[in-house]
């Protein structure tokens, strides 16, 4: 039987905030080419997309203003899920050049990979809330707070997935393609373009297992319908988010020590 024991004194990562901030800032800069135009576009993208979708859906679904808003919320929240999970899955390989340079908490690379998508989601949320207020349907403070809590759950889910997928991607080089197919199919599993009610009730539980489903439905419920989901529904969402985060962290912990060997 072999025994392994390694101990290292940390190399100054007490400056953890600096590492996190630099990873987020450079990701943002890489994506928008560090130009003023790129930065302005990053801010305007959610607003312009919101206005375009609103204009189109106002014409196509003129008689159903409720459906129009439901659709926009569903599309934006699902796009966040697609973008953030894709970035998370690719994160370790994309930053592989750092992993072979020094010993540092590499999970930070995975966790910060969703920052671009999170900024877009935050800006969309502001645009949505302003629109609701201007159209005389301002949600209550508690509804906004609940919406924020749902997004934190969403971040936990995305982080859990990213932790597991990023290390598995080092071994399975086509995992990104598989995940792309899954998220495309998942678009139709989540009730984005159709109301959940058109499906038999016995299927609802299964659909809720697909993480974007409860987030989208609960967000619509508190912001558009003014209804708060039950305590049981909230508890189940928390269990789902914490479960995915825990599984992701366990998979990451098991495989991360060997990640550099696959680079």
């Amino acid at each position, binding site marked *: 039987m072999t025994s392994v024991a390694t*101990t290292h*004194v940390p190399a100054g990562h007490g400056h953890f905030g600096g590492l996190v901030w630099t990873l987020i800032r450079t990701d943002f*800069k890489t994506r928008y080419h560090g130009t003023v135009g790129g930065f302005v576009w990053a801010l305007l993208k959610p607003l312009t997309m919101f206005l375009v979708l609103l204009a189109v859906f106002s014409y196509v679904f003129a008689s159903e203003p409720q459906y129009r808003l439901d659709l926009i919320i569903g599309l934006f929240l699902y796009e966040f899920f697609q973008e953030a999970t894709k970035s998370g899955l690719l994160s370790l390989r994309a930053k592989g050049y750092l992993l*072979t340079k020094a010993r*540092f908490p590499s999970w930070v690379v995975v966790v910060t990979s969703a920052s671009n998508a999170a900024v877009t989601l935050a800006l969309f949320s502001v645009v949505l809330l302003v629109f609701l207020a201007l159209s005389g349907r301002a949600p209550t403070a508690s509804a906004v707070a609940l919406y924020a809590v749902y997004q934190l759950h969403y971040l936990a889910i995305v982080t859990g997935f990213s932790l597991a997928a990023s290390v598995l991607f080092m071994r399975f080089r*086509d995992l990104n393609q598989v995940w792309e197919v899954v998220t495309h199919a998942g678009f139709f599993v989540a009730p984005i373009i159709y109301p959940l009610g058109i499906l038999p009730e016995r299927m609802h539980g299964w659909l809720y297992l697909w993480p974007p489903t409860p987030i989208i439905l609960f967000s619509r419920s508190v912001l558009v319908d003014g209804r708060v989901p039950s305590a049981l529904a909230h508890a189940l969402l928390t269990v789902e988010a914490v479960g995915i985060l825990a599984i992701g962290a366990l998979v990451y912990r098991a495989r991360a020590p060997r990640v*550099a*060997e696959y680079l």
Partner: protein
Amino acid sequence: MGPVIEARGICKSFSIPSVRRETVREHALDFFRPRPHERLRVLEDVGFELRRGESLGIMGRNGSGKSTLLKIVAGIYAPDAGTLAVHAPLTPILELGVGWNPDLDAIDNIELLGTVMGMSLRELRTATQDILAFAELERFAHLELRHYSSGMAARLAYAVAFRAVRDVLILDEIFAVGDAGFKERCQGRYRDLHRAGHSMLLVSHEPRTIATFCKRALLLDHGRIVMDGPSAAVADRYLMLLTEAPAEHAPAAAI
């Protein structure tokens, strides 16, 4: 004074499959097909100590396990067996010639690499001009790394790493980069750090480098330490090893 690095019985091998399966599709389609693996032993029962303030050289032929050993000591690879205790913060300078974000300029890349190596943003902001000056790249500070030559990129990396040094410095072929002037600056910085009491672990193929900068050295061959002694004697033994016929078993590759 106690050692800053203690390694005992370090073993490392890599599993090399006869057929590589790297995708979900390949794993699914070939699930029931046997896939023999060959174990490539890279390090076998390696043990050494690095004392505080000491400069220890490591020599060995290509594939003898030097780079793998450095990566294990740096915490980048995990050993299969053995114990490793590193009692002081260390800064590895490994594979620095490659791997930057090509879409960012030198200043952003300095910040990225510096924070990964444990520097604070405040330290980095005050050191940025010195780092650029050390690498002689002040004029190209705002140029994206995609436009740098490999030599410029390597100089920038070494400049960052030399500035990020904490206590123990791990160097892999450090003096093989850049022109004569840059090599001279690297050597000067190395001597300054050594005089300041930093401990050094230095890998090189160059006997003169090991004999000049280290008092003691290890000689690795086929993943084992075959000599631990004065650096000049180890350098001589290394030169003899190069002229000997290769052993029957193939040398392990550093992965």
